[in-house]
């Protein structure tokens, strides 16, 4: 009894483990099989991924030969900037050297940027020992002479203006293996605000978007630019040099040597740059500035800022120059505006999320916008508009800046990505269209309406956009924030001018706070309007420029230039403050210091005011004539006048071929290549599923092994 009672359970205990073990064994085997299957299939997939690697290069590119191999441009480019700053005017000698490394004769064509307010006034061409001084001609005549020289095998150089900040150098008949240089002289006014001077040397351009439909009958093949002319940008091919990465050009190509000599006429305390490391050497009041690393890569603007010793910031200055027996006077006056105003504002942020903003730029733009949102007070209203090929707004209308809306906006802004075209016109419609049309500073609900436009300005139809701003502005003010390594500063400056606002630019993600705090500070401070300069004698008022002084924001100086007036008497400037009170200040002209290049500054201002009238549409023949005459008189390059330098004797036998090479510009640092990239079109899903299954299988296998061992 006892034995049987013991025997029964012992038998059953013996049979059960056997059955269990068999099941466990099979489970284990099947699991391992499944695991091996997974591994095998994965390796097969990996193989499949490697297999079709070699595909034909369909992306047609200028520097790709018939076999699809990358070819380095045969013409190497080096440039040299020598900038001399005296007081408010910077004079630059820009030398571009083209080295032909090929066996053929070459014509080099190079599209390059200059500062947005640069006036080119001289050109020389140097080939070995020969120095040929260029002359200014009407554009068509310059082209004719150049083409003829090119055909006859003579060395020739020509520089045309495509946009106020975009130029083209052509250099014909560069002998094989030789170097020919073009030397340009230009001057520009230095930007002075809030006690700091700033100079910007652009070295490359952000590829621009060309709105409008392609012109159907235009030539289809490569024309020197990647863009074909469109209905809205008829010269698209002339302002779209191909952009390449630094490693795609020769090892020494696209490098710039830079030297600045600043003699501001007052002791300089600091010289800084948000873009490059600089070495400054003081020599009395003059400072020599060079980049730390020697030659700089031409893939971003060089920005140099300098500030006088604290307490010595100039608040007024007069300069005088005599040119061809005529007096030119330049006056600068900084109104001292102190008190802040606390009017409620309606702030409309417009952010460019087009493809050209991809990379660093969109990060800078997002950071700027977030900083802008931080400046909003509880009484303010705001909205966020983004545009690329299409425009979309965060809210239907501006909403109160309460914490809920601000949080929502911040989330929206953080998720913005850059892709698509730059259809700026529709964004302006939306941003300006929502404002009222009534006069005065405030709109219907007592808010001051301010539009902050954050963009790289990479568009080809600037003039049309300026006209749009002028027509639709209403009582808004437009402020522009330039983004990226090479923003279109011409767009920033002019858009802000037509928008009755002011502009700034961010050079680096680390440089966001300085310029923006300055800008937002200006936007929150009172604005001096209705500014009227009163010169001592009234007869020659028509010779003072700018003719209509824009409104002045905190820290900004009023600058007037005039002709035909001796340096004596007093200049009185008056303006109106928002509260209705008048502001007035006088400047003694007798204390004028000698200046250089004032006549060019004056001529440039006059040219700008003449061309302003032609903005809305066609420039009439009278204006064109006036511009050409003035430009030829003062030797300034404009859109109607070009510089051309021609050698007399032919160097190339006309029977040997001449190849034209369009030199590329470098892709601005931190931005993404221009052609459309294939998007990322796979999810993590298969990987996650596979990992999850694998993990489950592994743990169940481990569980079984565990049970078997410790059962």
């Amino acid at each position, binding site marked *: 009894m006892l034995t049987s009672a013991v025997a029964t359970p012992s038998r059953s205990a013996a049979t059960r483990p056997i059955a269990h073990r068999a099941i466990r064994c099979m489970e284990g085997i099947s699991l391992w099989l499944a695991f091996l299957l997974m591994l095998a299939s994965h390796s097969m997939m990996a193989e499949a991924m490697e297999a079709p690697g070699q595909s034909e290069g369909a992306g047609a590119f200028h520097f790709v030969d018939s076999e699809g191999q990358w070819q380095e441009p045969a013409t190497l480019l080096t440039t040299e900037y020598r900038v001399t700053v005296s007081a408010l005017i910077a004079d630059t000698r820009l030398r571009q050297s083209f080295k032909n490394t090929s066996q053929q004769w070459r014509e080099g064509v190079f599209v390059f940027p200059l500062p947005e307010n640069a006036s080119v006034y001289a050109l020389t061409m140097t080939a070995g020992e020969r120095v040929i001084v260029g002359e200014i001609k009407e554009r068509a005549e310059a082209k004719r002479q150049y083409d003829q020289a090119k055909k006859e095998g003579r060395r020739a150089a020509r520089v045309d203006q495509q946009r106020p900040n975009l130029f083209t150098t052509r250099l014909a008949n560069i002998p094989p293996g030789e170097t020919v240089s073009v030397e340009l002289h230009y001057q520009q006014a230095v930007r002075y605000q809030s006690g700091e001077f700033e100079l910007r040397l652009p070295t490359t351009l952000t590829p621009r978007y060309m709105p409008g439909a392609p012109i159907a009958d235009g030539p289809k093949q490569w024309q020197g630019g990647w863009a074909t002319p469109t209905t809205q940008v008829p010269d698209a091919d002339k302002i779209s040099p191909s952009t390449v990465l630094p490693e795609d050009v020769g090892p020494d190509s696209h490098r710039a040597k830079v030297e600045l000599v600043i003699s501001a006429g007052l002791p300089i305390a600091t010289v800084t740059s948000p873009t490059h490391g600089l070495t400054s050497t003081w020599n009395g009041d003059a400072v020599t500035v060079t980049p730390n690393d020697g030659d700089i890569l031409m893939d971003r603007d060089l920005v140099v800022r300098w500030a006088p010793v604290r307490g010595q910031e100039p608040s007024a200055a007069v300069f005088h120059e005599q040119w061809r027996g005529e007096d030119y006077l330049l006056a600068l006056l900084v109104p001292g505006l102190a008190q802040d105003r606390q009017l409620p504002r309606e702030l409309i942020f417009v952010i460019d999320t087009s493809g050209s903003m991809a990379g660093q730029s969109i990060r800078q733009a997002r950071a700027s916008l977030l900083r802008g949102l931080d400046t909003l007070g509880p009484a303010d209203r705001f909205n966020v508009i983004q545009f690329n090929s299409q425009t979309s707004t965060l809210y239907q209308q501006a909403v109160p800046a309460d914490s809920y809306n601000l949080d929502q906006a911040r989330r929206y802004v953080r998720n913005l990505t850059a892709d698509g075209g730059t259809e700026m016109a529709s964004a302006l419609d939306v941003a300006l269209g929502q404002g009222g049309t009534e006069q005065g500073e405030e709109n219907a609900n007592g808010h001051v309406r301010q539009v902050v436009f954050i963009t790289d300005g990479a568009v080809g139809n600037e003039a049309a956009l300026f006209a749009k701003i002028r027509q639709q502005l209403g009582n808004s003010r437009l402020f522009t924030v330039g983004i990226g390594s090479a923003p279109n500063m011409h767009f920033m400056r002019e858009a802000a001018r037509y928008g009755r606002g002011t502009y700034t630019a961010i050079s680096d993600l680390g440089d966001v706070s300085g310029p923006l705090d300055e800008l937002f500070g200006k936007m929150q401070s009172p604005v001096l309007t209705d500014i009227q300069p009163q010169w001592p004698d009234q007869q020659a008022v028509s010779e003072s420029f700018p003719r209509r002084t824009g409104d002045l924001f905190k820290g900004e100086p009023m600058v007037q230039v005039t002709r035909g007036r001796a340096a004596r008497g007093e200049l009185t400037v008056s303006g109106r403050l928002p509260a209705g009170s008048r502001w007035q200040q006088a400047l003694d002209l007798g204390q004028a210091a000698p200046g250089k290049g004032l006549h060019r500054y004056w001529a440039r201002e006059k040219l700008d005011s003449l061309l302003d009238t032609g903005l809305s549409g066609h420039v009439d023949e009278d204006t064109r004539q006036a511009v050409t005459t003035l430009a030829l008189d003062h030797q300034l390059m404009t859109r109607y006048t070009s510089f051309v330098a021609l050698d007399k004797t032919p160097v190339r036998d006309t029977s040997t071929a001449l190849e034209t090479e369009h030199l590329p510009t470098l892709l601005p640092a931190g931005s993404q290549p221009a052609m459309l990239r294939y998007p990322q079109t796979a999810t993590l899903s298969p990987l996650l599923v596979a990992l999850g299954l694998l993990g489950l299988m*592994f743990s169940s296998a481990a569980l079984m092994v565990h049970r078997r061992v410790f059962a």
Partner: protein
Amino acid sequence: MNRVLLLMVMMSTTVLTAGLWIPLKAVVAQELLELAWAESQARQMETRPWPWADTWPVARLSLPELGQSMIVLEGAHGESLAFGPGQVLGNAAGPGPVVIAGHRDTHFSSLRHLEQGSELKLQTRSGRWYRYRVDNVRIVDSRHERIDTSQLDDDTLLLVTCYPFDGLDNRGPLRYVVEARSGQPPVVSNERDPVQIDTVAGL
């Protein structure tokens, strides 16, 4: 030991759920997008499927031979592709080529069944259908090639997805490109034709 196992099971389940969540989201979102698409056709304006969406329906893509139809969203960034194929470039009604990209593991997984001569249809907001025929299918390496939009004909429809279809690597360089042609250049003025809406507005 048991704790370790439990932890592992939990982790694996989480990963698995996350992996399955992506295709589930893709399917569910298309249902919501149907509503937004119907509304945007009815009102003839951009309609966001949900208020915080940063994309909106722009077209309906139909693969009649596979019995598939899906709503195409604006833009090919991560957010839009999670819910539907994204229109990278162009518009069937406008001038120029159209480029649409989709995830190979969700909406565009059936692209592998398309072959030369297959029919594709694209409907714009106006309700008009544009017919395309597959011209060629090729595999490109996105490291060496870009979409050169100036080289594409105006009547081209490009469908882009990742390759290989069963790959695990979500950042692989290969792309599967289906190029289709409509045969006739799109006529822009036809946008004003009587609107024919074949979706049922749920609103």
